[in-house]
Structures are given as C-alpha cells and as structure tokens.
C-alpha cells in the first residue's frame, strides 16, 4: 500500500506538479503532527517531565542584560 502511494505520488510529479506539491506538504504535515503527538504520548507514558521549566534567563543574577 505504501509502495503504491509513492508510485502514485511520483506519477503526480510528472502529470500534475501542483497536486504533487499539495500531496508532499500534506504528507509532511500529517506525519509531523502524528509523530509529534506519538512522541509526546511516549514521554507521558514513561513519566518523563518535558513541560515548562525555570529558564536560566529568568535568573537575573546569572544573566547579562543590556
């Protein structure tokens, strides 16, 4: 099924470049969002805290401010 999708997309590159461009961006956005959510789910399952934290620039004594 995956091979068929890529063959179909490659065909679009020759027959309809505009549709090919849309398919490319759509695929990347869908994969990017899906992978981002899956990774977040994995970190939550592993109880790894990756939320907001105190940044070094919030510590006035360790930052040079102009």
């Amino acid at each position, binding site marked *: 099924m995956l091979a068929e999708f890529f*063959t179909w997309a490659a065909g679009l590159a020759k027959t309809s470049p505009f549709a090919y461009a849309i398919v490319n961006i759509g695929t990347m956005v869908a*994969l990017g969002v899906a992978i981002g959510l899956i990774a977040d789910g994995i970190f939550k399952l592993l109880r790894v805290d990756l939320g907001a934290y105190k940044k070094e*620039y919030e510590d006035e004594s360790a930052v040079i401010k102009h």
Partner: protein
Amino acid sequence: MHMPVSGVDMAWWPLLLIGFTVGVVGGFFGIGGAWLVTPALNIFGFPMIYAVGTDMTHLVGKSIVATFRHWKFGHVSVIIAFVMLIGTFSGIETGAQILYWLTQKGIAGSVVRYLYILLLASIGIFMLSEYLRVRKLEKEAGKQVKDVVGTAWSRWIQETLNIWPTFYCPIAKMRVSLWAILFVGVVTGFVAGILGVGGGIIRVPALIYLMGVPTKIAVGTDLFEVMFSGAYGAFTYSLKGGVELIAAVIMLLGASVGAQFGTICTKYVYGITIRLIFTIATFFACASVILKEISSRYAALYKKAFEAFLKKQGLTPAEISAIYAKKATVYHYMVEVANKPEWWAAYTKEYLWNQAGGILMLTAASGMCAYILIQLYLGVARELKEKRLRAQETAKVKA
C-alpha cells in the same frame, strides 16, 4: 531502494542517518540546516538537483515535531514568530527579485556567494568574540553567566521603533513594537532572499542581537518560522519536480527522533552554550559556501558550453537536468558524444570539490550531533541525581 521521481537507486539507511543527525542539530539550534543536508545527501549518491527540494520537504515535518517540543518547554513566542513571518516573506520576495535581476545581469553567482561568506564570517566572529568576552567577565566577576539578553543594537531598535502598536510578549518577557519585529523580519528576509537561502542561520542571530530575545526563545521561535518557510520551499521545488517524496519521508523518520534529542537537550544547556555551538556551525556553513565557490569555478569551465551542446542535440531542459543525476551519463555525453575530455576534467574537479564539501559537512554535523547527545546524557544524569537526592532528603525528614 528505488527512487521513483529521480530514477536513482540508493540505500535507505544514509537517508535515515542524515535525517537523524540534522534532526539533532536543527532541534538544538532552531535552523533548517540545508547547508548540512544538501552536500551530505550528495555524498551518498543522491542527485543534487533533488537534494535541495527533498531537504526542504522533510523540513516541514521536522520543524513541526521540534517546534511542538520547544513550545511545550515555553521556547516559542508565537506572536513574534507570526509578525516576523510577514516581514520575512515580504523581505524574501524583494530579495529574490533583486537576485533575479542580478542573475539576468550575469553577476549573481559569485557576488552572492562572496556576500554570504562575508555575512557568515562576520556573524561567526561577532558571536565568538562575544562568547569569549562573557567568559572573561565570568573569570573577573567569579560567577557563572548563563545567557546574555539584549544588545546595544536591540536597545536602539526597540527605542527608535517604539511606535504603536506595542505589546508585551510573555514568553520573551519583553515589551516590543510591531514595527521593530517587522523591521527585523524584512531585513533578515531580504538577506535570505538575495542569498537564495532559507535564512535560519541569519534569523537566529538576528532574533538574539537585533530583537534582544533570549537564546532559547530565538531557537524555538525560529523553528516556528522554519515550518512556514520550509512549506514554501517544498511547494516551489515540488512544482519543479525537484522533490523525492519517499526520501523525504525516510529522512523525516530519522529527523523526528533526532529532533526530540536535540530539542530536549536545550533544557539542559545554557543559552551561552547554544551560542558557542551555533558559532561553530556558522563557521562550517561559511566553509561550505567557500567550497561551493571553488567548485563553481570549475563548473564555469564546461556548464554553459555543455548545455548548449545538449540543447543542439534536441534535449529538453528537463532531460538536461536528468543527465546530471548520473555520472556515467555525463561522461557519455561529454566524452563519447561531444568528444570534449576537457569538459569531463572540469566536471570531475567540480564533483570532487562538492564531495569534499559533503564530507566536511557530514563530519561537522556528526561532531555537533555527538556533542549535543553527550550534553543531553549529562543533563539527564544530573537531573536524575538531583531528583534522587531530593527524594532521599524528603525520606529523611519524614523519618
């Protein structure tokens, strides 16, 4: 593995590996890293004409993954990114028009590359001297400096362009005028457009030094912008048929894992450390453009005449582009058909310089990737140790 658009066969693992490496580096710096990916892809036999478009396409997915993580950390100022994006695109368009005009006049190639070399070298030298100055201050004051926020330039821009509408940016913890962001966006976009590059390597220092944004916010905010500039690049390259989707997907799979590591590492290092590694990256980018300039001198010896010859043979521009995808085909047309061994000699030299650039960039990316992963390991180990100690202390108090 067969690449259906370009028609070349190549293994999948180099794509995965390159994706992972630039994922780590890109997530850490907040840049697209086309100057790393394009020559690295070429080293593994991926045709140059498809390398840029494929890189741009995988960048869309990678920047979504990395931006999401940076956003969770609180590193993304959406308001700055959106306003800057408007300025960036208008700047890119103006820059691209000037580039087109320079190309028509026949003075683009080398002039643009010299400008780019000068700009990258200036950014690198400035950032390095600032880093060394901070380290010296640290020694004199006897206390650690973790980041530097703002510069005399950023203060001047904020004060000069302090015109309505101004708004408070809670992420960067600063009040800023819309016009100041637009100004920086237009300037960086214009430079990126005239140089024909994505601009991450220019935008991050611009956000730090011209906007006065903390380093980590500059990284996260730039990645947000890369999502859109990558999509724009992917769209235009796809229209020209210069994207190999299957390769972009494989690269994205590697980059998604790498981007997690690179992004998470920013939590464990200080802004000043990110700046130092960014400086090194800038020098490597500069070296990459110098090598490109050298190789282009050899290209000038054969390209125009060779393509005119192919055109006379009745080949279309698309067919001419396809010839460059395979070295054996180039040899066939240059030596066996045109009987011009001098073209082949110049082509070989250009190819070797490009390969040298690829090896250098691959080494640089691997080195930076290894450094980031070590920093991540040390940071996680430190955090776990602190947690354990806190748990022990709590248990002691309870007992």
